């Protein structure tokens, strides 16, 4: 089980340690630092490092490292780690440093003797209330605390994810269908591989114990699904509806996967020409982006990222739309286009200068595309209706669709 946890910042600063069993000296992290130096990119550090007495298991999140060691069940531990990340949300090193005591208390509640005790964030939020500005002001004045005094009700019930006695003046239930396209396009622009990873995020603020049923117009689209524990599997299997008693507040209801066998619409095309010359230590770059199958919607937040070969020193380019930035240290070229105008396609053109004397790079760099389409689920998935049983009120309901690019790569 999990023995100790160390948080390490990107700069290599060990800023939090927690031990669930007897204390292990932080010198054990040296094994990790050694591996990290070898790996160059933090992504490439082997996930498990063996040391004479312990196994160090590490993950890399939000530009910081979580890292610990233990005895058994890798998958298990990695998942616990990701769950911890979930609770903290998008947190940076500074937020952790500012709230170090709360983080410490949380870690104490989440694991007992290295075994998970309570990871359901609803329960944790009742045990230790997340800090807000208002509460910290009230606390300083009244001397009350962030720590709950009684056992959270969810802990004992068969529905641990929901607390009892929820009350709202206006009852609302919102669902966000978010789809990400993972794709690899080859040089000619045809999709070598494309699939859709979707999630349905929910924000449910309903009083009492509502029992919800969410149905889709076209549930057959979904072939690989995984659910929040509140969803009744059997109803999904027999009727293809999602029936559940929701947790209170924000949670991820389900995630799904629409596999490569189905045809996936590719909303964007890229015309590119990147070449390096044998002589003169220079190269040319010419990229044009245009809309493809967008179902009549506008492409937004379009960003093209290029990981340049090591020998590229600088880029002298001009963009017809948006701004570009080349970081000569990380060798990353980012072209932030913004909204795509189909009448006037954005283009980025110019020359690259290479390190003189170095051989020209073998490979052309591949492009990573980031984009967003509002009000569209690219798979065509549509929510049919949401029914509330068990409570009398009529809640306000809403569904939002967003499509984004996931790992969307264009080979050159």
């Amino acid at each position, binding site marked *: 089980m999990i023995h100790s946890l160390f948080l390490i910042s990107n700069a290599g600063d060990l*800023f*939090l340690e927690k031990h669930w*069993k007897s*204390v292990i000296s932080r010198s054990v992290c040296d094994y990790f630092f050694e591996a990290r130096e070898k790996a160059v990119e933090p*992504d*490439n550090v082997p996930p*498990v490092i*063996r040391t004479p007495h312990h*196994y160090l298991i590490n993950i890399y999140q939000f530009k910081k490292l979580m890292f610990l060691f233990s*005895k*058994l*069940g*890798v*998958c*298990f531990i*990695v*998942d*616990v780690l990701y769950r911890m990340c979930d609770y903290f949300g998008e947190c940076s090193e500074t937020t952790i440093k500012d709230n*170090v*005591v709360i983080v410490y208390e949380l870690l*104490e509640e989440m694991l*007992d*003797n290295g*075994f*998970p005790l309570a*990871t*359901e964030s609803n329960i944790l939020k009742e045990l230790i209330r997340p800090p807000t500005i208002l509460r910290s002001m009230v606390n300083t004045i009244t*001397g009350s*605390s*962030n*720590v709950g005094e009684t*056992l959270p009700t969810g802990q*004992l019930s*068969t529905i641990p994810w929901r607390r009892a006695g929820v009350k709202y003046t206006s009852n609302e239930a919102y669902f966000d269908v978010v789809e990400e396209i993972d794709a*690899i396009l080859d040089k000619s622009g045809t999709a070598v*591989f494309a699939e859709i990873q979707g999630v349905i995020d929910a924000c449910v603020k309903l009083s009492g*114990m509502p029992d919800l049923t969410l149905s889709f117009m076209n549930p057959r689209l979904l072939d690989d*699904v*995984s*659910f929040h*524990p*509140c969803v*009744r*599997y*059997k*109803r999904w*299997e*027999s009727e293809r509806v999602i*029936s559940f008693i929701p947790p209170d507040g924000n949670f991820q209801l*389900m995630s799904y996967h629409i596999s*490569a*066998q189905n045809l996936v619409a590719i909303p964007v095309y890229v015309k590119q020409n990147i070449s390096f010359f044998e002589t003169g230590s220079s190269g040319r770059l010419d990229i044009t982006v245009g809309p493809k199958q967008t179902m009549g919607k506008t492409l937004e937040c379009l960003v093209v990222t290029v*990981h340049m070969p*090591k020998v590229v020193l600088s880029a002298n380019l001009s963009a017809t739309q948006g701004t570009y930035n080349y970081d000569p240290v990380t060798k990353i070229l980012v072209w932030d286009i913004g909204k795509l105008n189909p009448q006037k396609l954005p283009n980025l053109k110019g020359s690259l200068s290479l390190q003189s004397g170095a*051989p020209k*790079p*073998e*490979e052309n760099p591949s492009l990573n595309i980031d984009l967003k389409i509002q009000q569209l689920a690219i798979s065509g998935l549509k929510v049919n209706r949401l029914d509330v*049983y*068990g409570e009398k009120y009529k809640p306000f309901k809403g569904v939002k669709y967003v499509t984004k690019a996931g790992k969307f790569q264009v080979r050159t």
Partner: protein
Amino acid sequence: MSLSYSCNGHICENLLVMDSFVRFLKEREQEQLIKILSFLFYIFRHDDLKEMLDSNKDSLKLEAMKRIVAMIARGKNASDLFPAVVKNVACKNIEVKKLVYVYLVRYAEEQQDLALLSISTFQRGLKDPNQLIRASALRVLSSIRVTIIVPIMMLAIKEAASDMSPYVRKTAAHAIPKLHSLDPEQKDQLIEVIEKLLADKTTLVAGSVVMAFEEVCPDRIDLIHKNYRKLCNLLIDVEEWGQVVIINMLTRYARTQFLNPNESLLEESSEKAFYASDDEEDEDKKAEVTTLEKRKPYVMDPDHRLLLRNTKPLLQSRNAAVVMAVAQLYFHLAPKAEVGIIAKALGMFEPYLKSFYIRSTDPTQIKILKLEVLTNLANEANISTILREFQTYIKSMDKDFVAASIQAIGRCATNIGEVRDTCLNGLVQLLSNRDELVVAESVVVIKKLLQMQPEQHSDIIKHMAKLIDNIQVPMARASILWLIGEYCEHVPKIAPDVLRKMAKSFTNEEDIVKLQIINLAAKLYLTNSKQTKLLTQYVLNLAKYDQNYDIRDRARFIRQLIVPTDKSGALNKYAKKLFLALKPAPVLESPFKDRDHFQLGSLSHLLNAKAAGYQELPDWPESAPDPSVRNVEVKDSVCAERTVLTGPEGAGVLLLQTTRGSSNMQDLPKKRPKALTKKHTIAPSGSIKMYELLHRITGEGLAVEYCFSRQPFSPDPNMVAVQIQFTNNTNSETKNLHIEDPRLQSGMRIREFAEIGLQPTGESVTVVMGIDFCDSTQAANFQLCTHTRKFFVSIQPPVGELMTPTFLTENNFKKEQGKLMGMNEILEKLTLGEKCVNEHVIVERVTATANLSRVPCGSDKECRFAGKTVSSGCLVLVTVTTKEGGGAQLTVNCEKMVIGTMLVKDILQALSQ
């Protein structure tokens, strides 16, 4: 000027004084001084914190504790504050208390004596009425690693294991491995506690106690027998982390208790094949038949099936660890045909081929793993796609990955004969790559491929011979030299020339290259001694004086073998055979081979080495151990079922109402005698009356009955649980049984049961629905729909079913009765029926009429009952006072007068019969 001068003078003076003082002290005294100074610093270091901790204000204490915990979190030593902190262990402020606990657990091991001061506080905490405090006291007590308190811990764990609160019992389960690691001698006593907790029926405890079992006594498989079915059935409602632990344990359990589902299948089929070929020999056939008869055909143990079935829905968990655990369970336990549901091994990942395509932004280790998958998936059908994909990988900037890709191409070429030439050509093109590593790796792979059919590829060998001038990577050079030597007969003109070049550069070569030069020379000497005799001599002479003893040794050995002298013995004759023997082509193997023997998903499997604490997955037993050990005494399970969701049957009924186990009913093990099952699910006690909802004839074969099960309806405590039993008497299946269009009085609510998808002929299904009657006896009307028909039905509750029992003491009863006088009290005199001879019968009659519980009573002339209405929670108090001569008086106190009046009528009728 003068001022500053004088200042400087002072400093100088001071320094001088110090200096002379220090000099004055002897060396040893100096040391002591330093000690004293650092001690003073040590004492005053955290003075402010100590002051804050000693103050009366909670806010100051809290601030101090926060700062201290922040120090601990950053890894700074705060152990010297121990005495000041430990004083606050009894602090009323819960946050201060929690932070003190954090501190204590961290430093108790270092300050054992002081830590003992806090123990009494925890002992007090263990008796606290608040379950959270009891639990956290046990958590901290068991986390203090001080051996003196082992007996106290043991006692606390034992007590907590029988605590009322399941949360405290869960904490007790967590404490077990802690105590075990502190003092392994307690093992036997701890096993007793584990045994007790394993019998616990709540989902909350299940995961934790199995975890304790795995840590303390994983070999005591016998403890699991009685709980096996319960664990299987509870599994779906256990929290995720518990599921992982239980699934892993059950995997091991199944490997010791059930037979291998795959082995017997294999043998069976081979035997059949044997038959087909030997048709004529009748005798043989007979013999075979008898052996077959002796061998029982494989039938999967229903318990084995139960495990597979109950874990399957968990594949849809959001938790990757759970999915992985189920996947490994299927991998290790399921018949091969069923493994497909986790993704079909051997060709099963094929449809997902493209999901393993590699992106340039993947981390290297992911790239290598994806490459491995792609290589294993390659077959005649998809190889061209895969090779095209590999071609793009070769251009990657990540050189390790390029090398791995080239090896993967090599493996594809060896596995699939059709593409060998294509691969080879592709690899030869790579030989002109700019990157030396790519070339080197290609050479190594080509060498292996050529070994398979060298005759056809002399041009490639020639091409490679030319490369020797350019390639600098030693491994590649060595490979080329070996190739030329091995196939020197195919390139008779080039080979001696290469040797000439190499002889020239011999001294500057790496060791592996030198060895291959010697090798090449020897082979050429044997086949073409005319041209190469001198060259070989020269090379051998150079090698004789090499720095490396391996090379010197090899040179001496080879010289003896190939150059005939007087001393050289018989071996010389065979030199040619020795050197130019036909060598078997190498098998290009996966670097991930050989790790199958580790349990999938374990750390050991990932590292391909046995990790500390790894438990070997046992082999299937030759013959199955007695399956009856898993049978649970029926009596035992029935009592339990009533209270909590447990036991196969109980779970079936109750889970329907709760979360996700819905309609596990059909999944029950078939072994159980049917009549028994029926009795428990339909009429939990003899006194419950069944009502007809739909007659067999009006329902066209579908008969529906209902009863008021008197169980609390867990999704909504304000509803009455109505248990409905459907019996399908038709000849066809009934589908999509559900409720539609409820017509209710205002305020009434219905919670429908989950739709029954399919009901086969002749079977009964029981479901539970909830109705809030609003404490009235108005009927609830609704339509019962099947896939073909709709039936109008209504459920009207007897007034006695609108209440649930409450437990009151005699005093409370009197107090409450006093509040419900006047209008709320109804008095009736009655004559008891002939059979109502004693108290026992009266109690039975009253509780059968109304869902009330008995209230203890001092007098034997009086029977008291209490309950409250389900919907609004109004108290209902009933008193029956018997008089001599068969007379009696009935008193009902209830705020709801209608209910009271109706209840009086019903009870009067029941008692006067």
